[in-house]
């Protein structure tokens, strides 16, 4: 009976693939637990802040800051294990000890301070709008009431607009910012809203240069901090010291220019570090 052989082979393949995946899981775990490595949570899909590039490396302002801080903590760049920290998962990653710290456009606020501690802030962003270069019809938040607005499902920026700035705006929630950009490029939507740092990252991408601009409305303050385990004041002090040094030796300015420069983005000066003081 040939078929029995075939099903046996199929079963063998399945079992093999199972063991293979099991092994994969193991090695990943041991990688995290290694003594000389440091695991840092960043965003993987935000150009300018944290982006997984085609060659498998990572780039962005958050990545530069995290690398600098890790270096100050005594870890070489090659010993950093980057881990994706989606917005909804950041607190969990920190409290489970999956990562040493998180640098992922992580706004410091009181709600989050109940669960984690912050170092920094290391950057001051604002909620803003990205519009087409030739569109000058949006000059204040109330202009949005007659506009088609795009944001990402579950983001606080979308809620802010709906609740505070422009309750009548026609708001579309999609899965990712790229989908908004497609709509913006094709004039299906008029504006994309989120932190200006993220918007600047998209606008300064090579493919987008000259197509989009920031409206510059500064709808809210978003001080980015480095999230770490609650109560770890030692680490908090070390990271704050690293951030202070980064600003004083000019690396901060260099990282800002490198990541946001092409967008003609007027960033705020380095904020005063006030967490844990």
């Amino acid at each position, binding site marked *: 009976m040939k078929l029995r052989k075939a099903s046996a082979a199929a079963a063998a393949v399945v079992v093999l693939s199972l063991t293979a995946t099991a092994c994969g899981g193991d090695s990943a775990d041991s990688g995290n637990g290694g003594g000389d490595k440091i695991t840092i949570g960043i965003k993987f899909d935000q150009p300018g802040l944290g982006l997984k590039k085609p060659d498998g490396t990572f780039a962005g302002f958050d990545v530069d800051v995290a690398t600098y801080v890790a270096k100050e903590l005594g870890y070489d760049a090659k010993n950093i294990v980057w881990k994706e920290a989606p917005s909804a998962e950041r607190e969990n990653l920190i409290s489970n000890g999956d990562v040493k710290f998180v640098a992922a456009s992580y706004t410091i606020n009181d709600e989050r301070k109940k669960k984690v501690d912050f170092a920094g802030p290391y950057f001051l962003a604002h909620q803003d709008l990205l519009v087409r270069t030739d569109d000058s019809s949006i000059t204040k938040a109330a202009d949005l009431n007659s506009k088609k607005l795009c944001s990402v499902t579950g983001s606080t920026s979308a809620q802010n607009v709906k609740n505070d700035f422009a309750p009548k705006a026609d708001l579309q929630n999609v899965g990712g910012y*790229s989908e908004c*950009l497609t709509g913006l490029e094709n004039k299906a939507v008029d504006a994309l809203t989120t932190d200006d740092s993220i918007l600047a990252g998209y606008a300064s991408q090579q493919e987008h240069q000259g197509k989009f601009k920031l409206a510059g409305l500064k709808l809210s303050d978003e001080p980015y901090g480095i999230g770490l385990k609650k109560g770890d004041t030692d680490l908090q002090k070390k990271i704050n010291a690293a951030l202070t040094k980064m600003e004083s030796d000019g690396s901060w300015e260099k990282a800002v220019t490198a990541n946001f420069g092409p967008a003609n983005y007027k960033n705020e000066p380095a904020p005063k570090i006030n967490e844990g003081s």
Partner: protein
Amino acid sequence: MSATSVLYDAPGARAKRRNILYTIVFLVVFALAAWWVLVQMADKNQLASEKWSPFVTDSEVWTTYLLPGLGETLKAAALSIVIALPFGALLGIGRLSDHSWVRVPVGAVVEFFRSIPVLLMMVFAAQAYAQFTNVSSDMRPLYAVVTGLVLYNASVIAEIVRAGILTLPNGQTDAAKAIGMRKGQTMAYVLLPQAVTAMLPALVSQLVVIVKDTALGGAILGLSELLSQNRTITANYGANTIATLVVIALIYIVLNFILTTFASWLEQRLRRGKKSTGAVLPDVNAGTYVGDGSGI
């Protein structure tokens, strides 16, 4: 098409002319629609070569995003079917039990999980794992997706197993009884081995359903499977969302087409085979039989 050609006569001169006319009209309508779409796309700059060329010129798109994504899709699908199979077999046999205290609760479980959307189970499982277990966050989407798929597909497989056993001729059970086998023995040595071969095509096409459902995990739960690569690719190559989606859809289509073809090949082979009873549970997706429509 020989089976359906009874619906119309062999075309004569007039019918041939008419068919040619229909063909031309159809072609014109189709071409106009396609032309309109292409013009609009070109107008919106979606056909620009820099949006499409990465998939041909840059092998890193494949090695960094698409292939690992495909791997994750296959891993979730394989895990789901492997775990769902034994559960499904148990539930299916349980539904055929002679004892009503087994049959009724098992039937209720099967019907319950068959009647609620698999997405609901995935969302529920994701939150349950977050609250009650310490599964690390990067494994959680995979766990949740596999859990949802297992719960749903175990109950679908239970029905496949049940139908597979019921298609076997009664003579098989009678003969087993005649030589003094007990119920358990009849099931284990006579019915199940034959039912398993009869079910294989239906199981393979269920795999197509599972592969398609993993995409839900990417869209809603953040599993880094094939569809979710859309997000990272478009973040890198200038929001080429349309191009990326087309490439991803093509990968799914090729993968599922291979599985469907394999299922119908298997079915035909089993039908021809002389050694089994010839009972074959038809492959739901191949459309060769009045499908029960659940394979969606």
